[in-house]
């Protein structure tokens, strides 16, 4: 099949291309099972070497090829041609400064990520055996979903609150905070709750639900944000998530 790509281009260094514009490419002999990322490679390698986009692992793990494809945020490497059709529109994710073509400056996104202390904190001495801090299966289950985040920014840049206000910490940073706030072994839940309780923290979430279907890892993002809101209201993460409510957990 033939596939038409309509791609949002921008290159601040070349006069005439320093305002965003659309460019079309037609690819022949495309299989429905080809991935969108492979076809972007074909555009770059066969037709236009100046096309720029990020990708690293190409297999849905590194999270570097988030883009808006046919109006929705996705990972180009996880999306098949048959799922988007023969006319494919690709543009950079929104809310972060565009550097060139499909590449955005991820620094503001990572600043928000860093602001929520996205690391494990436990200052107690190690257990007697000097090895692991043990946790029950139930305690592990309550934050299992949010461990899946790969920081691709699909959720944060699908959020109208973030488009309007880049100071809003955004879904991805809240997801990362959730992963530690609800970890019973971690001791910095209070600090994270205080950070996210600020006016540009969780309260800018208006439950628009764009983030949840945007997540290429299937994390129920809006649910997790809701749980963090409740943890802030109660001042503690205890008792908010019932492990029996986790679908994958037996």
């Amino acid at each position, binding site marked *: 099949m033939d596939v038409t790509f309509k791609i949002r281009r921008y290159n601040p260094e070349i006069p005439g291309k320093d305002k965003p514009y659309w460019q079309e490419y037609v690819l022949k002999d495309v299989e429905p099972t080809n991935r969108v990322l492979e076809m972007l490679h074909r555009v770059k390698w066969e037709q236009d070497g100046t096309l720029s986009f990020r990708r690293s692992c190409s297999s849905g793990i590194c999270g570097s090829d988030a883009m*808006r494809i*046919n*109006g*929705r945020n996705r990972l180009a490497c996880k999306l098949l041609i048959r799922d988007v059709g023969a006319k494919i529109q690709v543009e950079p994710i*929104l809310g972060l400064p565009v550097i060139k073509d499909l590449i955005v400056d991820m620094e503001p996104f990572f600043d928000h990520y860093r602001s929520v202390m996205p690391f494990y904190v436990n200052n107690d001495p190690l257990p007697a055996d000097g090895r692991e801090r043990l946790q029950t299966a139930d305690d592990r289950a309550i934050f299992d979903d949010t461990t899946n985040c790969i920081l691709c920014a699909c959720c944060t840049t*699908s959020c*109208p*609150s973030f*488009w*309007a*206000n*880049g*100071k*809003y910490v955004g879904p991805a940073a809240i997801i990362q905070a959730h992963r530690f706030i609800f970890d019973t072994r971690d001791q910095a839940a209070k600090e994270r709750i*205080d950070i996210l*309780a*600020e*006016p*540009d*923290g969780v*309260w*800018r979430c*208006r*439950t*628009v*639900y*764009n983030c*949840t*279907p945007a997540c290429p890892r299937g994390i*129920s993002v*809006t*649910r*997790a*944000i*809701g*749980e963090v*809101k*409740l943890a*802030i*209201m109660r001042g503690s993460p205890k008792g908010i*998530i*019932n492990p029996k*409510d986790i679908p994958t957990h037996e």
Partner: protein
Amino acid sequence: MTSLVLTVSETLRYRGAIGQWSWVLHRLSGLGVVLFITLHIIDTSWALLYPELYVEAIATYQTPLFTIGEFLLVGAVVYHALNGFRIILIDFRPKWWKYQERAAWMVLAGAAIILIPVFIGMFGHVLNFYSGDSQVLPLMDVLRAQIPFVVGIVVAIVAGVLFSFLQGLIAGGGEKKSDKAGSAVERFWWSYMRISGLLIIPLVFGHLAMMHVIQGVFDITAANFTVVGTDAVNVSGTAVEFVAARWNMFLGGVAIWRLYDFGLLALVVIHGFNGLRYVLTDYTAKNPTLRRGMVYVSLIGALVLIIVGTLALIGTIDSTAIEMAQRAAESLHQ
């Protein structure tokens, strides 16, 4: 402004699911209701403070422009109430997020189910009024009557921004790194919006039923009509006597409709203007002075309406006011 334009245009372009459209409708319906209550509270206070003006205000309500607005208003209130209920439910039970899409459709269906009979009832009043020999003010007069409100809103915006600018000059610019006080404030507002929302739903539905369905804005000026929720008859057929009958209605020594209206006034104004603050601060994040100004605008609006509304509710409409209204009504249609 750029962030508002960007959000609006990209919301239209982004292929979000129904959750996104529920959010758009929730904001639009909320803003519409805030605009209306601003007019409505101020001119209802005139029943006590300036009876002649109140007669004119009700006459502007009895014109096609406001009739269309009334249908939009009732639609907006019903949608906002049901969708607010959906938001509250899932906020307190995040595990129900899976049902949010279904709930969003149920909100639309529920709004339609409620609105069809309500609109039929309202349309009966409309038909009755416009097919009779009623006097209808020309459109230009109606628009001219809104000029003071437009001026008032502009003044509030200018005052809010100016105040914020002066505060910036005195206290110095720059943003706080950590905002502990802001956190407590936002936590309070998050709960307030949800609790007040739940309390408002029965109050506002009762208010709509009485004032828009059982008796409409057209019955307010009907002579020798028993006023809804009271045993009093509106002898003079003036809007002022209608309001007086309701506010002077006592049940077991309590002025129940004053109490009811005060509950609505306080809950709705604070809910509405905090919602306005949410919307305005969302789109002014890039400019701290403007953003703080928008907080002041919301605060000014809420304070003015609560003060004016309370003044009207604690006063007593006497027979002189009704006579003034009668004379005003006569001269209005000459």
